[in-house]
């Protein structure tokens, strides 16, 4: 936690002291075994006189982290309809597979010939993803969705440069897009051009045409878009960009609606990323490792970041190798990407199979539409048509002036993680709800009941909402103040040479 309001900060500290506050001189949590190698002292100039580490008994440490763990909220503890994040259940099987010694203990520098089965998993995953994308080749390198975006944009740039069209530097991005799209664009050294949406929530074709000229490098499009709506004119959009020599990039963050149903390549998408930590059920809590493989059309495959897994030597010889694509933009990640995540996603794909994936997408869409149908009367729905895997409504309640944020904070008291709010940016007071396919009818109904109770309360006693949450360890934080005036120092750690900076 980087910054909390003073008052709340004290409350937090009072019932959960930091490790430094629990520290007592001489306490130890473990006894190191006797060294079986000769000890070599550090050179004097590297040695420190003091090092302020907390001194604790094992039980202190266990209680401390158990207490903190109880404050955590994840898909394992409750409903987590965080739109655009696909917070589905992460099956335990994935964890089991990732922990198999043959996988977990393989060394990333091992010779390819010693880790053929591991390369086999990677190749299998590359093929699955290529098939789902409707594209010809995949690199598993990128470590997150945004990283996949950057990868694809660098590929776009290299592609245009090779064709003598390096002046193409404008990337068109709908205004409903995730903020990572323009950020990746500027990071790739190109210019982001925002395209407004039309009244149905599609890309405004007039604006798109007005923005298309010989300077266009490409378009980044999320389909279904972040309003949870299928892009109705996707073919016209793709055709417009292609006609001007641009490439079309698919932001695959929302593939949970399409996997096994629609192949983006069939819609004319030239390259795309997947979020394994969304669609393919690898964990994405705590900002841990993600994975954002990129798929590309055949004439773009040469630009993929390496290494990728391919069969080498004579066809059928069965030897797998790590190879660099011919015109590769280079590495995007050390070693082989986030291999542990690749394993989990691979296990998920193997268990579901093609039919299972299709059912997954269908149920994700069904669940979202069930919520949409039940919420339509309660909250304004700005772009009201059948949704895909998520829905966006406005967090406004008739007869009350509470805001989307108040509704979200009050949901915490009901033991439910709030939906994404204030995004997409083109919806006022947006609530973006993505139930995912792994939630049961009962859970969805409980969520609806909670929202119903909150709506009633908003009219009867709005201050309960404005002051929510009431049951969490920390009350509502003044986020603006925390961002403007962060308190980054903990007095309990003071003076200790920087070890305690938070």
């Amino acid at each position, binding site marked *: 936690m980087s910054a909390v309001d003073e008052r709340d900060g004290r409350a937090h500290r009072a019932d959960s002291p930091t490790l430094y506050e629990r520290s007592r001189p001489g306490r130890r949590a473990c006894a190191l075994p006797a060294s079986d190698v000769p000890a070599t002292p550090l050179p004097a100039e590297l040695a420190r006189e003091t090092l302020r580490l907390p001194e604790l008994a094992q039980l202190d440490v266990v209680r401390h982290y158990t207490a903190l763990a109880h404050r955590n909220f994840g898909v394992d503890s409750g409903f987590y309809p965080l739109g655009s994040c696909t917070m589905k259940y992460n099956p335990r099987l994935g964890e089991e597979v990732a922990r198999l010694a043959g996988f977990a203990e393989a060394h990333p520098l091992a010779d390819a010939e010693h880790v053929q089965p591991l390369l086999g998993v990677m190749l299998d995953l590359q093929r699955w993803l290529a098939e789902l994308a409707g594209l010809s080749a995949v690199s598993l390198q990128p470590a997150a969705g945004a990283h996949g975006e950057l990868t694809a944009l660098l590929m776009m740039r290299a592609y245009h440069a090779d064709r003598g069209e390096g002046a193409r530097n404008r990337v068109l991005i709908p205004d409903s897009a995730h903020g990572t799209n323009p950020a990746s664009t500027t990071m790739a050294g190109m210019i982001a051009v925002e395209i407004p949406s039309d009244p149905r929530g599609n890309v405004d074709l007039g604006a798109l045409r007005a923005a298309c000229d010989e300077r266009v490098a490409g378009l980044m499009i999320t389909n279904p878009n972040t309003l949870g709506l299928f892009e109705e004119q996707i073919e016209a959009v793709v055709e417009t960009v292609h006609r001007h020599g641009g490439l079309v990039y698919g932001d695959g963050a929302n593939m949970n609606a399409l996997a096994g149903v629609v192949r983006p390549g069939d819609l004319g998408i030239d390259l795309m990323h997947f979020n394994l930590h969304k669609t393919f059920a690898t964990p994405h809590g705590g900002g841990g490792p993600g994975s954002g493989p990129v798929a590309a059309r055949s004439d773009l495959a040469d630009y993929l970041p390496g290494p990728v897994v391919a069969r080498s030597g004579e066809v059928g010889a069965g030897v797998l190798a790590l190879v660099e694509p011919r015109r590769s933009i280079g590495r995007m990640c050390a070693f082989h990407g986030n291999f542990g995540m690749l394993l989990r996603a691979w296990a998920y794909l193997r268990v579901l199979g093609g039919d299972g994936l299709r059912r997954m997408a269908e149920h994700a869409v069904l669940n979202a539409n069930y919520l949409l149908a039940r919420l339509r009367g309660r909250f304004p729905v700005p772009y009201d048509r059948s949704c895909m895997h998520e829905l966006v409504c406005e967090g406004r309640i008739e007869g009350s002036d509470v805001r989307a944020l108040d509704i979200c904070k009050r949901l915490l008291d009901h033991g439910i993680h709030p939906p994404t709010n204030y995004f997409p940016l083109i919806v006022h007071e947006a609530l973006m709800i993505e139930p995912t396919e792994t939630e049961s009818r009962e859970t969805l109904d409980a969520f609806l009941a909670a929202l119903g109770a909150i709506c009633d309360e908003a009219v009867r006693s709005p201050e309960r909402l404005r002051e929510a949450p009431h049951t969490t360890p920390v009350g509502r934080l003044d986020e603006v103040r925390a961002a403007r*005036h962060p308190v980054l120092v903990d007095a309990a750690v003071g003076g200790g040479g920087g070890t305690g*900076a938070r």
Partner: protein
Amino acid sequence: MTAIKPAPAARAQPVPMACAQDERKQSALVGFVLNPIAGMGGRVGLKGTDGVVEEARARGARPVSPERAARCLAALAQALAASPAKPTPRWLVAGGAMGADALRAHRLGPFEVVHQPPPEPTREDTLQTVRRFVERSVALVLFCGGDGTARDVCSITGTAVPIIGIPAGVKMYSGVFGVSPTRTAALVAEYLAGSIGLADAEVLDLDEDAYRAGRWEARLFHAARTPFEPSLTQRAKVMSDARSDAEVTAAIAADVRETVQAAPDTLLLLGAGTTVRAVAEGLGVEHTLLGVDAVLAGRVVGRDLDADRLAALLERHPRCLLVLSPIGAQGFVLGRGNAQLAPEIVARIGRGGLVVVATPAKLARTRCLRIDTGDPALDAALVGDGFLEVRVGYHRRRMVRVE
């Protein structure tokens, strides 16, 4: 996260340096002045109330500004009480109907009357009151009225004292008004709590005689400082993206600078307004806020140019970029406040030579951009497919509808 060296007594002294100013703001002196006749003309079909109060009254006009001020003050009392920072402003006001009555009714705390207007106040009373505010170094002037009132207030405060208007006039083209009385209250509360900063804004007014005669001649009169309403975008991402207006305009300036550096022999014309001024600052040149300046190879080669001098410059330097920003609240890129840019001059520069700049916050206030050069054929050519590309940040552009 960068490791920050812990300061030993940080807990004991929880308020970082940057907050000291907020502490001051929390119990700040705020001036409040209400133009009791603003908005009367509109209801009875007069385009503005300046100089025609008698006629407005005769036609049955009733004052609207006291009611709008009341809505704002009621919301402000609530917002201040609900704010975690608990600001407790002290007030300076004009007497009676020009402020004190409303303030008292809403129990906004202690106030002091600095000017007692006669029963039939005039603009001179507004000016007097605001002069007292400035003498007493208020942190903010909250006024209630329209463009005429904004112009009066700003003629005294300039950019030295921030101002914000409760919208109550017939004309509100200036960028210093909240979008509604309650929104204005929220901005005041957030500003006093130290959560939002200040931004530049233009104060525009119509020439009312011309307007009533059917001609629409808005003029840019002043630059003001006003609490900055972050755009939806910025509000939504306030945790990660708490950027100030100055940072955004600096990013826009860097973007334009890059374009200019790539074309060193191009004549650069800088139009009016505060966003263009920020671009000029980024280029390291001085700028005439209300006029058009010319820059070549980093040097100012013409200041506050009229149409003839512009034409002469263009004769010598046919390759030209014209930097413009939407002015005021109506989104006019051309045709308000820049009469020097005569149709023949704009035609010569052409659509390709326009560099339109605006902050997302400013764009959020305008439904679309407008162009009105006075030459319909030229307007149609400039409007093109109905979208103008606007620079909204560094390497960030946006297609914006234009009419």
